[in-house]
Every structure is written in C-alpha cells, then in structure tokens.
C-alpha cells in the first residue's frame, strides 16, 4: 500500500537543476549513452516538432502525478504527439533505446498510474482530441484520447444520446478505458468493460493494433480472443490507447431522485439488496453513512438526518418511473426507512444530490489540513451488509476518520480516509486498516479494487486476489505483448520496478 512503500529508485528528482544540463539528467535517469539520448531527443523533435517535446521541470512534474496520494514521479521527457502515426513513430524510437513509455490522458487517476518509476518518456495525448465517426442509429461513437466524458456528452446532446459511465472526474475516455473506470451509474449502465466495443492501441514497438478490427463496431462478436477487454483496465502496461469506440445510450426520458434515511447500516444495505433482487432497473443507488451525512450537512449547510442514508435515482418513461418508485418505496418502508424526499425537476434533483457530489470535499473539511485517501473494495451484494458493519467497527476501534460513501448497487464502497500526513502513528493505522479492509473483501469473494485500478499501491493485494497461477498468466501476457517491459513499469504487476 502507498503508505508503507518508500521509493527504491535513486533520488533522481533532487539532482535535476533548474536550467541547462537537461540532457545530462536524461542520461542519469535512463541508462543510455549521451549520444544515443541526443539522437533520440532530436528524433522526437523531428516527429512532434520542437513544441512537441518538453524537458522543462514544471512540465515533467505535471506529468508525473495524478489525483492520488502517491508522490510525484516525473518522467525524463514529455512528448506531445498529434496523431496515432506520431505515437507509433515515437514508440519505435523508445523501443530501440529501451526507454520506458508512460501514457498520460488527463492525470485524474487515483492510484498513481502515471508515476514514472524508472523515468522514461511520458506520452501526453492531449493534442489528439477529435470525436470521430458518430453513428446515432447504431449507438456508437469513436473518440481520441484527449476527448473527455463531459466534452463527449456536450457534443452528443442534440442526438438524444449520452455516455453514462461517470467516474466523477472529467476524465479522458481512453484513460477511462485504460483503467476500466466505473461510476455512480454502473448499476444500470455498466462499467467501461461493458461499454468499449473497439480500441486502437499502439504497442511498445510501435505496432498499431485494432482490437476488434479496424473500424468495426458490431454490438456483439465472438471473433477470436477478446483483445478489446484485455486492454481495458491494463493501465498503460500493455499499450497506448489512441482511439476507443464506445457504446452509447438514450438520454432518459425522465428522471426522479429520492433520498431515504435508515436507523441502521444493516437496514439501508438490506434495502439495496432487496431493491436489486426485485428487479428494479435503478440508475443510481448511493449510500452515505452517518459520519458522511454529518460531514455533508456541515459542508453544504444541509439538514439531512444524521443517519445511514440512501440516495436513489430512477431513469425511464413516466409510467415506468411510477412503477419503479412504488416498488422501491415499499421495500424501504419495510426496512423502516424514513419517508422519501422526492425530486423531479433538474434543479431540485441537483440540490438533493449536492450532498453526494460534495462528499469528497466534505470529508476533507472534517479535518482541515489533512489529506484524503479513498479505499475501493467491492464484494458480492449479499456480503455487503456484513462488510460495511465490520468496517465501521474497525474504524471506531482504530480511532480513524473514514466516512463511507458507496455505489452499494454494485457492492462497491469507498472509505474516505482523512489522515494527518504529519502523524506517523495515524498514517500507520490507516495503512493497516486499508490492508485489513482489502483482505476482508477478498475473504468475502470480492476484489481489492472495484473501480480505481491497481496502479502502484495494490500490487501485492492483486497477488493475493488472483493467486499464483492467475498472476503468472497475467505476467505471461505482459511478457508476450511487452517483452522489454517498457510500458508503464511498476504498475499492476510487481516486476518491472527496478
């Protein structure tokens, strides 16, 4: 886990002066002769132009961190290709010189996936930004890496379609494919795994692969190995994603939101399980525990009862909404839930949901000056009541601040750990707590990461989760597609860091 790990790479960052001698630093970071590095840099410039290659310290640092708690690990150089041909040409050069390659989308990841542990070349894909090939009748669209989720949905607004996977941040869609992102809507619309139809990927040696065949977009296929889903969630360790073809959905005709509080966590989670078992196609079902609700009340000046609470959202036609809501209300009432607070129009719904949207900031505001770290376990639905109850007991025994917010419809919840970075004892307790939590989830047939990915911090847990033969199979695939181990070293699998 992130807290226990100290950097085993040399303190390269401290050696970089602010000006001049930048070529020498590149040499220090990557073991290659000065001439070879010079040759590589001028080759980069001839491909991307002078403005497309940066050795500047600020630019490198910007590309060495994401939104996780992992510290910045800048690459040695950042390149800005403008099309897939440039990406391929740059990769060929890196392959020849054995430079590590780190793809970079929007830097909004939560697991340190962009940290350049061995230095190398960061491929910033922000200039490849087109929305291509929209087919409204077929419900698909192809996008390039710089296109973010909000940009795509704004573009689609006149067509009556949208892309519902919503991880919160305005992330790059290709980046979301790389991390197999999910979000509040997953219970109804699925995660990236279910919604990526095709990918264009550049491998470490520059080969361009279309995982389902160039330009193909059938709704289903049984043609050969599922290459598309091999790359979804590969976190840049198998290739650079330069296009993704996505499955679109109709914008819901009508939306209704509701909030309901319960006297116990058990009652709230039982309701969730029963709602899903009743077959209600609920769009969002979010759980906030009492600590979280209290934090939100303070932060957003709301007055929700400080009790375990469910935030619900229903999508559909007017008639189906009525039915969905009635069934749900019956269930919550049978679990002694409070009366629903309803909302139909966009403005009231926005107000109702503000509590959930501001949860991250509300948690941090509980203890100003502290850092926040989100856990991310996911278990089968039937085990959810038990794991949340046990986790809350653990939090209290460990004297930790960890309000809980979760996509309980998927069996996935996050403890937003708020920790004082200058208190080593607390840091240690958080570290142990998160390991216990992950192992608790694994013991309940679950996973150590429901949506954030493995990145840097969960590699050991992945070994526990998959077991030796699973990890070996993954390592074999990695060796086959990236024999020189250049693609994003040190992520997902334990080897490749040194």
């Amino acid at each position: 886990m992130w807290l226990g790990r100290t950097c085993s790479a040399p303190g390269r960052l401290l050696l970089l002066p602010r000006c001049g001698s930048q070529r020498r630093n590149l040499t220090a970071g990557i073991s290659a002769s000065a001439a070879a590095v010079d040759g590589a840099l001028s080759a980069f410039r001839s491909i991307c132009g002078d403005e497309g290659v940066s050795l500047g310290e600020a630019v490198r640092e910007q590309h060495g961190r994401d939104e996780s708690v992992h510290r910045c690990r800048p690459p040695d150089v950042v390149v800005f290709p403008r099309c897939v041909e440039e990406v391929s040409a740059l990769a060929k050069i890196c392959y020849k010189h054995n430079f590590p390659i780190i793809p970079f989308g929007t830097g909004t990841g939560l697991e340190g996936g962009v940290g350049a542990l061995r230095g190398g070349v960061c491929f910033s894909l922000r200039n490849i930004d087109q929305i291509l090939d929209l087919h409204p009748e077929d419900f698909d669209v192809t996008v390039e890496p710089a296109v973010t989720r909000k940009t795509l949905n704004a573009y689609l607004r006149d067509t009556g379609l949208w892309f519902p996977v919503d991880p919160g941040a305005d992330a790059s869609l290709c980046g979301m494919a790389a991390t197999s992102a999910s979000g509040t809507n997953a219970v109804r619309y699925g995660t990236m795994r279910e919604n990526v139809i095709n990918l264009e990927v550049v491998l470490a040696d520059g080969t361009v692969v279309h995982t389902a065949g160039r330009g193909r977009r059938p709704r289903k296929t049984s043609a050969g190995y599922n290459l598309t889903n091999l790359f979804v969630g590969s976190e840049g360790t198998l290739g650079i994603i330069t296009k993704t073809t996505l499955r679109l959905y109709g914008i819901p005709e009508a939306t209704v939101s509701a909030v309901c509080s319960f006297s116990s966590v058990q009652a709230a989670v039982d309701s969730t399980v029963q709602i899903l078992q009743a077959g209600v196609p609920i769009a969002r079902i979010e759980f906030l525990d009492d600590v979280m609700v209290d934090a939100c009340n303070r932060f957003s000046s709301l007055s929700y009862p400080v009790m375990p609470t469910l935030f619900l959202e229903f999508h559909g036609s007017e008639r189906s909404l009525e039915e969905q809501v009635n069934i749900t209300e019956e269930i919550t009432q049978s679990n002694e839930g409070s009366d629903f607070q309803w909302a139909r129009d966009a403005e009231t719904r926005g107000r109702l949901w503000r509590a959930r949207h501001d949860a991250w900031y509300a948690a941090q505001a509980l203890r100003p000056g502290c850092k926040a770290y989100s856990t991310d376990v996911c278990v089968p639905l039937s085990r959810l009541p038990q794991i949340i109850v046990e986790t809350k007991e653990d939090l209290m025994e460990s004297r930790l601040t960890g309000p809980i917010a979760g996509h309980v419809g998927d069996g996935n919840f996050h403890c937003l750990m708020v920790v004082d970075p200058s208190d080593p004892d607390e840091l240690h307790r958080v570290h142990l707590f998160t390991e216990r939590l992950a192992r608790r989830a694994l013991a309940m047939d679950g996973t150590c990461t429901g949506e954030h990915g493995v990145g840097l911090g969960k590699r050991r847990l992945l070994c526990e989760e998959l077991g030796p033969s699973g990890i070996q199979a993954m390592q074999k695939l990695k060796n086959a597609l990236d024999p020189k181990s250049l693609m994003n070293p040190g992520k997902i699998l334990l080897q490749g860091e040194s």
Partner: protein
Amino acid sequence: MSGRVLVGVKRVIDYAVKIRVKPDNSGVVTDGVKHSMNPFCEIAVEEAVKLKEKKLIKEVVAVSCGPQQAQETIRTALAMGADRGIHVEVTGKDYDTLGPLQVSKILAALAKKEEAQLVILGKQAIDDDCNQTGQMTAALLDWPQGTFASEVALENDKVKVVREIDGGLETIKISTPAVLTADLRLNTPRYATLPNIMKAKKKKIANVKPADLGVELTSRMLGKYRGVTGKRKERATQQSRVEEWTILPNIHRTIL
C-alpha cells in the same frame, strides 16, 4: 389571445468548436464544422415549451432562416416540445449577408401572419453577438419588448419580465403581444430525448420564402474584412489591420 408563441432559432457553429479563420480572411471555416442551435435560442425554446406545459399558451411555433440545414435546428426545437416549424429559405449570397435587420423584418411579418401573442428570441447569437434582432422586431411591430429576461411570468394579458441590467435586475410589466429575449439565467434547457426526436420527425415544417412575406433581403452593409488582426507577417497595408464596415448613407432613412 391566440395563445401562439413564435420562437426564433438560429443555426450557429457549436459553442465547443475551435473557430478557424479562412486563409483569405473572408470569414470563418464553416464546412464540415459542427453546428447546433444557438444556446440562447435553446433557452427561448425551453421557456416557450414551459409556458405550454403550464397551459398558459397553446402552441409553440419554431422559426429559422437559412439554407436547407436550418431544418435540423427546427427539428431540435420540435424535439424539445415545439409543435410545428417554419423554415424561411435563405441561401447563397443572401445567407452570407443575412443580418438582424432582415431577420427581424421576416419575424415581424410572420408574427403578424401567425397572430402571435409572444415572440421569444435568444438575446443574441454566439457567432455575431449582435443583440439586435429582438429589439428591431419589436420596433417594426410597434410591440413592447422585454429583453435580457431572467424571469417571465404571464399574468392575464400582461407579461411581467425581470430583466438583467448593468445595475442588477429590473422588473417591468408589459402588455401582450410582446417580444421577449432570453438571457442565460432564464432556465436550463432540456435535452432532446430519443423518443421525442422520433416524434419530432412527424411534426410539420412549413417552407416559406422571404418574398412571400414581402421582405427584401438586400443587405445595406458591406463586410470589408473579417479575420485575425495584427498576427500575419504579410500584413502590408494599415487598412487591412482594422475590421471595417462601410454603412451606406440611406439605411438611416429606411428604418424609420
């Protein structure tokens, strides 16, 4: 009162597109560029549809002036809840020089023909930022105007309009028929959903030519230069640095 509201909608380059100037500085690149309904027009349509949903008015008619593609914009309005559309055909050179004066003459003629109780427009278009069509339309019709509306309330045969002005907000009460122009905070326009887009395909769009409405389209303004100032190295003469519009003298007499 007829209970009919006329809403003008303009097809413009989508707000999210990066605008590029043509190499000869005669205008901006529009070929192959995404177009959509002007955002303020969306707000206008939304307000009209809301009035209909509250049963304060009976029919919403969406109007657009332009070439064939203007029909797409009318279809979007229909998908948002307008009942029928009117496409005023303006093509070629006429379309290139189409400006607020001609559009307001067209809208005025249509408002009279359709016996509109209200004409609701966006306050301005995001391509030319003129902010003139609503005001000119009201002047031509000799109707009261409630511009920069952030709140609209129908009260019998009067309209209460809260306007956004430099100093804050101003509330006026005007009698109908009237012209209103929508400002940003009037409402949040709805998305067109697939079922509504399908229904909209069956709604009628009438085709009309400006001449049928007795409107003459000749522009009285000559666009001299439209492009990037001061950047290009080949900029030789001082004249070409500045955006010049030559207005012919007799426009003054014509409006009055």
